[in-house]
């Protein structure tokens, strides 16, 4: 049974099953993997690179490379970790090749941030969040690429310290140092921009925001 037929019958195949089918030449199965992972990979690239166009290019290139290298994937890691590794390498290459500062702040007011899973926001809250997004994007430019990647993988993709260490090819304590230093840099940058904390932004207690944040992470970490 091909991947598309499995989808019709409501069967949810695991990543690993879809990889096996894809390796046997079933492109439908591979496209199911694309559908499943394109949003997280795009989000990762966007937060590391800071530009939508570049993030889309990196995302597309990630799946193209994954498709070509699929036969070399022996299941030694989770498929998602393997994808993350490809995407992060592409991001790093892109930053080095372009030799320009990533994180160009999007001034386009039409760029709508993706909706959250929480309650419906008022227009005012949305505007505040959009402004806050720009502030965070600017603050992120002060981080090294390693710090930024570590924070993005931890905060938005829910990876464990060990998984991040494997992806970055460094010891566990280095990951924690990068997180610690990165969060402190962000703290100073945000304070400089007049952002004291989430409570001062949308009128919600920090714990409520953190709860929503964790739920988003769980959604991404399938």
């Amino acid at each position, binding site marked *: 049974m091909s991947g598309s037929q499995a989808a019709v019958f409501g069967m949810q195949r695991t990543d690993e099953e879809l990889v096996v089918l894809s390796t046997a030449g079933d*492109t439908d199965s591979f496209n199911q993997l694309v559908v499943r992972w394109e949003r997280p990979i795009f989000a990762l690239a966007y937060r590391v690179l800071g530009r939508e166009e570049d993030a889309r290019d990196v995302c597309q290139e990630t799946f193209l490379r994954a498709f070509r290298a699929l036969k070399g994937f022996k299941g030694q890691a989770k498929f998602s970790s393997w994808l993350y590794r490809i995407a992060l390498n592409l991001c790093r290459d892109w930053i080095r090749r372009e030799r320009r500062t990533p994180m160009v702040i999007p001034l386009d007011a039409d760029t709508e941030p993706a909706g959250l899973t929480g309650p419906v926001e008022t227009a005012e809250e949305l505007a505040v969040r959009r402004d806050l997004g720009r502030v965070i994007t600017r603050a992120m430019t002060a981080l090294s690429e390693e710090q930024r990647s570590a924070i993005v993988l931890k905060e938005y993709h829910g990876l464990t310290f060990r998984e991040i260490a494997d992806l970055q090819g460094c010891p566990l304590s280095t990951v924690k140092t990068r997180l610690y230093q990165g969060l402190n840099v962000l703290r100073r940058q945000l304070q400089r921009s007049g952002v004291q904390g989430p409570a001062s932004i949308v009128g919600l207690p920090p714990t409520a925001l953190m709860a929503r944040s964790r739920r988003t992470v769980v959604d991404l970490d399938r």
Partner: protein
Amino acid sequence: MTEKNSCVEKDALIDYLYGEADRDARIRVEAHLRGCEQCADEVRGLTNVRGTLEAWAPPEAELGFRVVSDARPAPVPVSLWGRFRHPPAWGLAAAAVLMLAVAAAITKPELEIGRGEMVLRLGWSDTASDPATEPGVEPASRSDRETPANAPPQLLQPLRGTAVAAGPRSRATSPLQKEADVFRGPGAVAAAAADGELLSRSARQLLLEEELRSDQRQADLSELQRAIGEFEVTGAEQARQQLLDVLRRVSAR
């Protein structure tokens, strides 16, 4: 990069911040935070940063990348169902041969050749003389048995009708016998007639017994026969008469 000194080791602090410290480590950090305002302030600040980061969402980009197969088409798996929907000619032929073989096994044909005549006798022709196993009659009596005794009469009527309708058919030769007739040689007609005579006598006898056992059934049978006869003889005439009446009424207006 300047780094703020923390009394708590940064690894332990990060573990605590992300809720991944074990119980003992968590108790140690919390005990320290209660007595150290500097560390407590740092934890509050970093917690706020994490909360602020939640507002940073990627744009709603149109993605939709899909891999399409290259010029060389991938092998398309054909399901068993797909194969059987369009059976090949040789498959049909094989099925036909199999059918004949099964039919032959069931009917136990006997071929007699002698004195310029050839008789093909099927197994069912032999047993047909036994009324209890005659295929046409058997359903009639069974259908009667299966009729619930306490069922209302209006429900019983159609069931009986069915049973009776099967009766006359049972007197005729069964389809298998008919097929056997095709293979009969010309000299065997007399023998076949004798067989047929015996068969129809048995069937009639069985019907008679059935009818005697049930007066209602007898009445049904005669009523049905009368109705059929009436329809056959006068049905067309009546219909024509009714049509003419209608035409006459229409033209008179």
